[in-house]
């Protein structure tokens, strides 16, 4: 890949929220960094005024649904990665539940190439654990790992690998190439026909319940399996207080488990289902206020390692209908950083360095892309960076987003923070808050 020949100087930015600095980006790397006015700036450098802006390593999403191939009416790799860039991401892990399923080297390489061609963010395909996500036999995990896409994260996301022996084999098998199984924890029999969190609200409004125990039972089983076979496990979109407790316990035993929470589970609750607006229908479902507090606490104390979006675009037809007929999922790439700022940074529960950890460093490490992403903001490091203005506020407008779908649950809500610029290997994918098309788009 070529790098952008443009040189940038970011003036007065605060790396990880620390002291102001001038940062020069040239040749795809951080070329210079020092106190304002102290660094040599090439004469042709493009000036970016970053006073009071926070400079973060480019964000990494471990859980993105890009929908291509198969549902290009909802999202494409190009539109989804534009949304990623707009949200400050420089790398996304594209989930395998496409059509065809990403369960072969051919499909993951196709998705990986589409990402390279689009040029807005590095696309790291997630491989399916089982053929066709059917939960019956292992997909060719090795072939995907050794393909050009270098797959390291495997998941049947959307479905749970509920068969215990299949899960055990997958956990063991991926050790050969440093892979990880990312489990969508949902006991299928306990959630047949489930529509929303099972509890006070579901009882009242008459929607079939998705009980917390259906998530917790699978997580409990999987951490014990991971311990038994000495494997690495990643828990997708953990959503309940009980799940936080189980992961906390597992980590205290030294089990090699990591966990993610979505932005929406950090702030929204099942009370929203009272509107019967399918925008709020998501899997796992929005939980109670007590669960929201528990996941915030788990994120703050490190029990939960990362925030991942579970960005799940859907067409209008799949959401403009009865709740029970609607698709599960909500978009998240363009609101994730703001939600983390609102729920964790502004109340003083996390620092910007913590944000860098949960939205960049840790997801890069879990996804085994730490050679390129989630790097320190330091001279010589790849210029994968995100500049955010934490003082800005904005009202979310679904129609104005870069994603091809409008199913954001934050429409009409005011959120803090704005991504001012995103750099992918020194090329600005976002500048002045607007997505920048690659020069000679498509050329490599």
């Amino acid at each position, binding site marked *: 890949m070529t790098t952008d020949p443009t040189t940038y100087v970011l003036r007065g930015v605060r790396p990880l929220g620390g002291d102001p600095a001038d940062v020069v980006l040239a040749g795809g790397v951080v070329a210079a960094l020092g106190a304002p006015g102290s660094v040599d700036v090439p004469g042709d450098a493009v000036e970016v005024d970053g006073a009071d802006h926070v400079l973060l390593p480019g964000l990494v999403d471990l859980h993105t649904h890009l929908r291509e191939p198969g549902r290009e009416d909802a999202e494409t790799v190009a539109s989804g990665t534009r949304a990623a860039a707009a949200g400050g991401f420089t790398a996304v892990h594209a989930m395998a539940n496409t059509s065809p399923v990403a369960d072969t080297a051919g499909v993951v390489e196709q998705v990986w190439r589409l990402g390279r061609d689009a040029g807005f963010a590095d696309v790291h395909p997630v491989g399916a654990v089982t053929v066709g996500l059917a939960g019956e036999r292992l997909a060719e995990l090795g072939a995907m790992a050794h393909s050009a896409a270098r797959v390291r994260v495997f998941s049947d996301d959307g479905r749970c690998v509920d068969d215990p022996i299949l899960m055990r084999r997958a956990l063991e098998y991926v050790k050969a190439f440093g892979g990880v199984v990312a489990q969508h924890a949902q006991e299928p029999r306990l959630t*047949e026909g489930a529509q929303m969190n099972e509890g006070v609200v579901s*009882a*009242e409004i*008459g*929607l079939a*319940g998705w009980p917390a125990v259906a998530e917790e039972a699978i997580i409990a089983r999987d951490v014990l399996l991971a311990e038994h076979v000495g494997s690495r496990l990643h828990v997708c979109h953990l959503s309940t207080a009980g799940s936080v407790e189980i992961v906390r316990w597992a980590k205290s035993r030294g089990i090699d488990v990591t966990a993610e929470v979505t932005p929406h589970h950090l702030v929204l609750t099942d009370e929203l289902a009272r509107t019967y607006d399918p925008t709020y229908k998501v899997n796992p479902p929005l939980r109670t206020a007590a669960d929201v507090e528990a996941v915030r606490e788990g994120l703050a104390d490190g029990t939960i390692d990362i925030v991942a979006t579970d960005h799940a675009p859907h067409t209008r037809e799949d959401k*403009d209908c009865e*709740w029970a*007929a609607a698709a599960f999922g909500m978009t998240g790439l363009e609101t994730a950083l703001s939600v983390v700022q609102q729920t964790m940074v502004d109340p003083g529960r996390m620092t910007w360095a913590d944000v860098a950890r949960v939205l960049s460093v840790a997801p890069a490490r879990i996804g085994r892309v730490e050679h390129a992403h989630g790097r320190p903001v330091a001279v010589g490091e790849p210029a994968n960076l995100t500049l955010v203005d934490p003082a800005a506020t904005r009202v979310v407008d679904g129609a104005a987003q870069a994603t091809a779908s409008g199913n954001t649950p934050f429409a009409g809500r005011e959120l803090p923070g704005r991504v001012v610029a995103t750099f992918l290997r020194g090329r600005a994918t976002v500048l002045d808050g607007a997505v920048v098309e690659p020069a000679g788009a498509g050329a490599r």
Partner: protein
Amino acid sequence: MKHLLSTADLSKDDALLLLDTAAQMAATQSRAIKKLPTLRGRTVVNLFFEDSTRTRISFEAAAKRLSADVINFSAKGSSVSKGESLKDTALTLHAMGADAVVVRHWASGAPYQLAHAGWLDAAVLNAGDGTHQHPTQALLDAFTIRRHLVGRRGGGDPDGVGADLAGLRVAIVGDVLHSRVARSNVALLRTLGAEVTLVSPPTLVPVGVETWPCRTSYDLDATLADWQPDAVMMLRVQRERMSGGTGGAFFPSPLEYTRYYGLDARRLALLPDHAIVMHPGPMNRGLEISAEAADSDRAVIVEQVANGVAVRMAALYLLLAGDPSAEGNDL
């Protein structure tokens, strides 16, 4: 009142107005000429995404006796999985100039969506949505209870006009988990001052029921003998709750269900003399209710059906002609 979506939305005054208006409507129904000119020129659409002949003909009779034009729109056959698009149907009805839409839907919340999504400006009457609400059923139940237990016993107005249900005890027995009738009744009976006990096997009570304004029990005999309800409302048990289906059977066998939760002559004898027996229909005789109980002189099940028409007339009247200046508005 713009819509009638859930009994939980009704204030006590709203509920009493509906019941008192229903009493006036019922009085007109004993006349030789039952038809009133009140809703002449207004269009009522019965929009049924789920079959229910009983409910549809009850609403149809109510609308016709108020002289409304009635259009029956069955959207069930077109596409079962997603149904005819709710939105497109709503836009069609809007274009046709429907004044009221009576909607029965398999999906909880569909009437709420019709009323709030901005697709339609007609009044929406919920005629049963999924496992959520069936407000006119609860209103006809309350009307029936009031007539028998306040009106006739109290010696005042024979229909109990103006009175609430304070102090009355109602046991609701059966599949509460899947019952829109139970949800509607719990909210309305509480608003009207009655006490409610839900009696079900533990598998058929929703998780979260502890916040409902009622008691729950797993023991029908104890509830009847010790709590002495004034009315017992038996809920229908659907066949699919017994056979397994997707979630497995909710109780071991129909026989065992009947043994612990069925209303029969022996249990009937535990009740106070004045107590009435109710059922929203259609009944599974021999399962949740024995023939003796269903046909006893305590049973007011047939009367519930007749009261349903009066209550639905009242609901249509108050939603469509609630403005007292409207033409032909005197009963």
